[in-house]
């Protein structure tokens, strides 16, 4: 699922941007090492595994020999990533050599040998009897998550008592809600896109915002990241003795979603070729999400019936949702009955949604400057090339020697033309 990968990659970029000292402290935790290993690009993973038991440094030339010539860009990307995460330390003496970070290496070796199980204190039997079952946990997790998302939508409609801490509200306000005085807070464009994203992507976004927020509150980012990542390695349903928390599926999926695979939830939407939509769901959240881009007509105890109309889609486009997001939301949540059919959402519906979107963007306007009356063809050609290099050339007419250039580079053009005159 590419979107989750992008969000998770952003999280890793944030990890990579920590200071060198923080990063080295992070690597003392074996679970972080494993999480980071999982998030590396495949070639980088291979390099790390090859360097596992090599203590010395490997010259860069030798590493380049491992790759075929047309894989060279991937090789460069992998090496850059590893250097960025301070996994590979570069030494330039006579030639560049790379060495694997030693804390990282020893932690992973231990992990490999001992299997990486978490230390589990045996819980007193009185408590184990009262542990909630897996189904209860799932239901609880889903319930809380829906409450959370509904909070996001319905806070735009009515004032509801918040039972989430103020730091969460700050996370919302940062990117997703925009608060205007005297009006109820409105969802921003990214807020709408957030709602249509997959659960894992949403989780990562929240985690990332929460961590960037924590800097303002004085909590060390590295400690927070290591706690969250360690949390994600617990198996769902097992508790810990002291301060008792029982991780739910949501948390464990965090670390799984660092790689490409993730648990698929049951789809519930059927879209017909006559633009009608049937969603077999009881959740209020789903109803609200569908209301974002379709006209909900009937709501039955287990079914939501709606139609995708031009007006409803225009509404969605005005709020900043793109056609691609709507179509991918429909495809990802397709009911199992239609999910096997190729394509799961009828093509005429997809095409029409895209056509309606492009109908709104028929005209492109750019602030620009128009140049004519060039003294000679050479000056005109030089100006064209200059504008093209600055990627500001919008239109040219060689016959009549006229040029249209973006407004941002007008100053540079003026300097250039003055230089040409001399």
């Amino acid at each position, binding site marked *: 699922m590419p979107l989750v990968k992008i969000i998770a990659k952003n999280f890793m970029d944030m990890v990579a941007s920590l200071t060198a000292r923080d990063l080295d402290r992070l690597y003392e935790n074996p679970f972080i090492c494993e999480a980071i290993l999982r998030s590396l690009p495949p070639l980088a993973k291979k390099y790390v595994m090859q360097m596992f038991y090599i203590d010395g440094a490997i010259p860069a030339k030798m590493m380049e020999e491992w790759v075929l010539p047309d894989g060279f860009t991937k090789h460069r990307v992998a090496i850059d990533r590893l250097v960025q995460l301070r996994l590979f330390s570069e030494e330039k003496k006579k030639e560049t050599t790379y060495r694997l970070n030693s804390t990282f290496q020893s932690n992973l070796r231990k992990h490999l040998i001992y299997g990486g199980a978490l230390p589990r204190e045996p819980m007193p039997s009185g408590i184990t009897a009262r542990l909630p079952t897996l189904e209860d946990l799932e239901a609880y997790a889903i319930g809380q998550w829906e409450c959370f998302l509904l909070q996001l939508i319905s806070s735009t409609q009515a004032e509801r008592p918040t039972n989430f801490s103020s730091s969460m509200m700050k996370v919302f306000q940062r990117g997703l809600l925009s608060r205007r005085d005297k009006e109820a807070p409105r969802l921003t464009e990214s807020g709408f896109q957030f709602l249509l994203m997959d659960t894992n992507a949403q989780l990562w976004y929240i985690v990332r915002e929460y961590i960037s927020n924590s800097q303002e509150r004085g909590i060390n980012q590295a400690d927070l990241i290591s706690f969250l990542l360690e949390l994600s390695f617990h198996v769902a349903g097992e508790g810990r003795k002291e301060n008792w928390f029982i991780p739910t599926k949501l948390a464990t999926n965090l670390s799984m979603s660092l790689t490409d695979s993730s648990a698929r939830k049951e789809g519930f939407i059927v879209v017909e070729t006559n633009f009608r939509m049937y969603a077999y769901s009881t959740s209020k959240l789903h109803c609200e999400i569908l209301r974002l881009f379709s006209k909900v007509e009937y709501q039955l105890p287990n079914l939501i019936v709606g139609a995708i109309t*031009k*007006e409803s889609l225009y509404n969605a486009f005005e709020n900043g949702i793109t056609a691609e997001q709507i179509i991918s939301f429909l495809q990802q949540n397709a009911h199992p009955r239609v999910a096997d059919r190729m394509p799961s959402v009828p093509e005429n519906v997809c095409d029409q949604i895209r056509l309606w979107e492009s*109908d709104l963007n*028929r*005209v*492109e*306007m*750019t*602030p*620009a*400057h*128009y*140049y*004519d*009356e*060039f*003294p000679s063809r050479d*000056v005109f050609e030089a*100006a064209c090339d200059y504008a093209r290099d600055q990627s500001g050339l*919008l*239109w040219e*007419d060689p016959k009549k020697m*006229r040029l*249209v250039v973006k*407004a941002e580079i*007008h100053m540079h*053009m*003026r300097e250039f*033309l003055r230089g040409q*005159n001399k």
Partner: protein
Amino acid sequence: MVNAIKGLFISCDIPMAQFIINMNASMPQSQKFIIHILDSTHLFVQPNMAEMIRSAIAEFRDQNSYEKPA
């Protein structure tokens, strides 16, 4: 010496270009906004006309759509 004019560059399809040219022609002389017609899909107009052109196109689009009386 090269002559420079500041304005707004419009890139669209041919019917929309004709629509904008028509709109320009129906304006009184003091309010005409097209500086140059570059070719059949590109125009160069005065800088602050963006909103007006956008709202005219939106109105044209609404006139073309039929909404069933509820």
